């Protein structure tokens, strides 16, 4: 027969101080773990959601990123006339030759300078990124020194409001609009006209990359192969989602440091939980013996104490989750290992993150509870009663 759960709950409530302190210790560990997992989830999402399966990114053969690409603009008409490209609103093939440069901007809060990606594009560049929406202002006009910035750039850097001028390249650029990139990697970019950008950075006559939009996913695959196989071009086609999937490696330093921290903290809190459970067992040795006399079996006592420890850690997990809630959705940035520029992302407490946090707490509870529960179950009835 199992010991009722209410017994454990009442026991935890009886020694309030001890329970609260142990649970708080576990909560701190859970908070740290959630913070790190939410960080990684947000980063992952920034990259995964960036790629559009219909878009084929064209780079110079052998180059791995837009930044290190660069090819002759004379190749662009050939690319544009490849079969399988969707038509834009003017009935032309939807393709955009682009220039990507990295500039250094100071953060608004004064915590240092950050590399930011500036992308020059053709008018079709806006059309082939339908997920990106204009929030306020208007898009840049081709041929003008105008830029649109993402929402997070607008928030994080000074001189990035509509009507401001940003200083980079050879002079001021007027900010005319703010766009929402839906948490994708574009959330960290500034966009403008490709010809203006190229002349500002003395890169006329070339593109760092080109984007082609295919009519359907099958055509995208074919288009990608056609670009890569064309011997004259010496270019390489990549499906946009594949390109961004590779960049998720930027999260590796956070991942390594994060897990080291979380695991060390978890070991520390498990020991604390173990201490609390040993004390719980010691206080109740006579009670446990009585339970045995009444007829509860050893396994049910073992289960009951393990369960109490798990309950304690779950309480900690809940407190930890509540402590972290205000940080959900907070935006932050880290350096992109491929483009060397900052990628902005939000902390995401998804159900997976919460689930993992609870499992994490459960493991701490189990680890801390098994040895004391084992001791409780094995105690000799007579000597315990005499205590």
């Amino acid at each position, binding site marked *: 027969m199992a010991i009722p759960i209410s017994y454990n709950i009442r026991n935890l409530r009886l020694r309030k*101080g*001890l329970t609260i*302190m*142990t649970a*708080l*210790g576990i909560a*701190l*560990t859970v*908070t*740290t773990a959630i913070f790190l997992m939410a960080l990684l989830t947000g980063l992952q999402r920034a990259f995964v959601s960036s790629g559009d399966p219909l878009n084929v990114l064209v780079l*110079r*053969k*052998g*180059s*791995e*990123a837009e*930044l*290190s690409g*660069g090819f002759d603009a004379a190749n662009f008409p050939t690319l544009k006339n490849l079969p399988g490209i969707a038509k834009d609103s003017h009935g032309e093939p939807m393709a955009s030759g682009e220039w990507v*440069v*990295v*500039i*250094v901007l100071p953060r608004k809060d004064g*915590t*240092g*300078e*950050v*590399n930011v990606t500036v992308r020059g594009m053709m008018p079709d560049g806006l059309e082939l990124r339908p997920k990106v929406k204009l929030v306020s202002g208007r898009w840049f006009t081709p041929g003008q020194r105008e830029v649109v910035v993402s929402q997070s750039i607008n928030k994080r850097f000074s001189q990035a409001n509509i009507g401001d001028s940003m200083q*980079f*390249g050879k002079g001021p650029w007027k900010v005319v609009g703010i766009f929402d990139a839906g948490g994708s990697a574009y959330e960290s970019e500034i966009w403008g006209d490709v010809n203006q950008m190229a002349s500002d*950075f*003395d890169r006329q006559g070339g593109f760092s990359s080109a984007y082609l939009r295919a009519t359907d996913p099958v055509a995208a695959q074919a288009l990608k192969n056609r670009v890569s196989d064309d011997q004259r071009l010496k270019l390489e086609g990549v499906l946009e989602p594949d390109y961004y999937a590779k960049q998720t*490696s930027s999260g*590796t*330093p*956070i991942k*390594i440091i994060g897990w080291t*921290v979380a695991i*060390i*903290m978890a*070991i*520390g*809190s498990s*020991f*604390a939980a*173990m*201490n*609390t459970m*040993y*004390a719980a067992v010691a*206080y109740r040795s006579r009670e446990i013996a009585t339970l045995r006399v009444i007829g509860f079996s050893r396994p049910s006592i073992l289960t009951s104490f393990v369960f109490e420890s798990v309950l304690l850690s779950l309480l900690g997990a809940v407190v930890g989750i509540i402590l972290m809630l205000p940080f959900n959705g907070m935006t*932050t*940035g*880290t*350096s992109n290992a491929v483009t*060397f520029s*900052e990628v902005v992302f939000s902390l995401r407490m998804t159900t997976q993150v919460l689930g993992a946090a609870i499992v994490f707490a459960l493991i701490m509870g189990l680890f801390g509870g098994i040895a004391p529960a084992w001791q409780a179950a094995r105690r000799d009835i007579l000597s315990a009663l005499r205590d």
Partner: protein
Amino acid sequence: MTLSSFVVRNAFRNKRRSILTMLSIGFSLLLLTLMMTIWRTFYIDAGAPNSAQRLITRHKVSLTFFIPGYYRDKIRSIPGVVAVAPMAWFGGRYKDDKPENFFAQFATDPNEYLVAASDKVVPADQVEAWKRDRAGAMVDAELAKKYGWKIGDKITLQGTIFPVNPELTIRAIYKIDPPNRALYFNRTYLEEAVPFFKGQTGFYYTRVASADDVSRISGAIDDLFHNSPQPTKTESEKAFQLGFIAMLGNVKAFILSICGAVVFAILLVSANTIAMSIRERTREVAMLKTLGFTRRGVLSLFVGESVALAIVGGGLGVLGAALLVTAVSHSPAGIGVPGGLRMTAGTMGVALLVAAAMGFLSACLPAYNASRVNIVEGLRHIG
């Protein structure tokens, strides 16, 4: 029985609890010490003495833009400049694109690079051999060990930024502490293979005669090119490295919040233990008081016990951290840390002080309560 031996005996009356508490505090302090070490390396350490004499000049817009090669002579003409080495980040692949096979590769001028980077130790004959061979490379001893490279071995890198796959011969192997696992090769090779790189360079690595001149000279360099199409930004080597750390995100806040959580965790654990042990000893406290111990005496007994536990646990944690830092700084992961991780006596001392302070703080309230126990009540206490 002296007071201190009384404290020690009491601290270990429940061995299991004391050990668990110490382990718990130990792990927390291990983390704290690690974080403090990282903080120290990033923000306090000035780096190698040589490093303070070195400047890095890059394109003002960003490191990804080239700057002209003729800047070199102009920089060299500034009084106080000892050597100027042109550098370019090659960023190639070796074998495959797995992250563990990645290492830094630079194209530079062998004639002047080692004057600027005088802290790299290379046998003179190897330096000469490297200077003579246009397709020669100089590699870090640790890196050579990892791949089993010897002088005279041939390796091929695959260019990603530059459209060329250089075939290099290892001519020199240098030693530096801490190792940086990098490869340097002759920029002439790159210039000849890549037309767009001709007459260009990525950044300049400048050594000045005295560390006091650093700010004057870096200002002078930037003034030289202020109105040119390629303006520059010059900073000390340390500031340049800090720029990369700043890009990782808000590292300072990250470290501080972890430290805060850890310190608070120590406080909780230690307070918990001391509260448990005082609870068990209510009758004992009353007895001590009957024997003539003052409130103050009782208070200091418990506080001493808590501090002793925290210090022993903290000591274990600090030791563990020291071992871990030594291990990490010799592993591939430690190479990415500019300046290298190092554990100092100061950091250890501060960590132990934090532990002691937490032990003290956590015992205050429960011990104060215990010292106020009414003798008659306390003697009657069961449990």
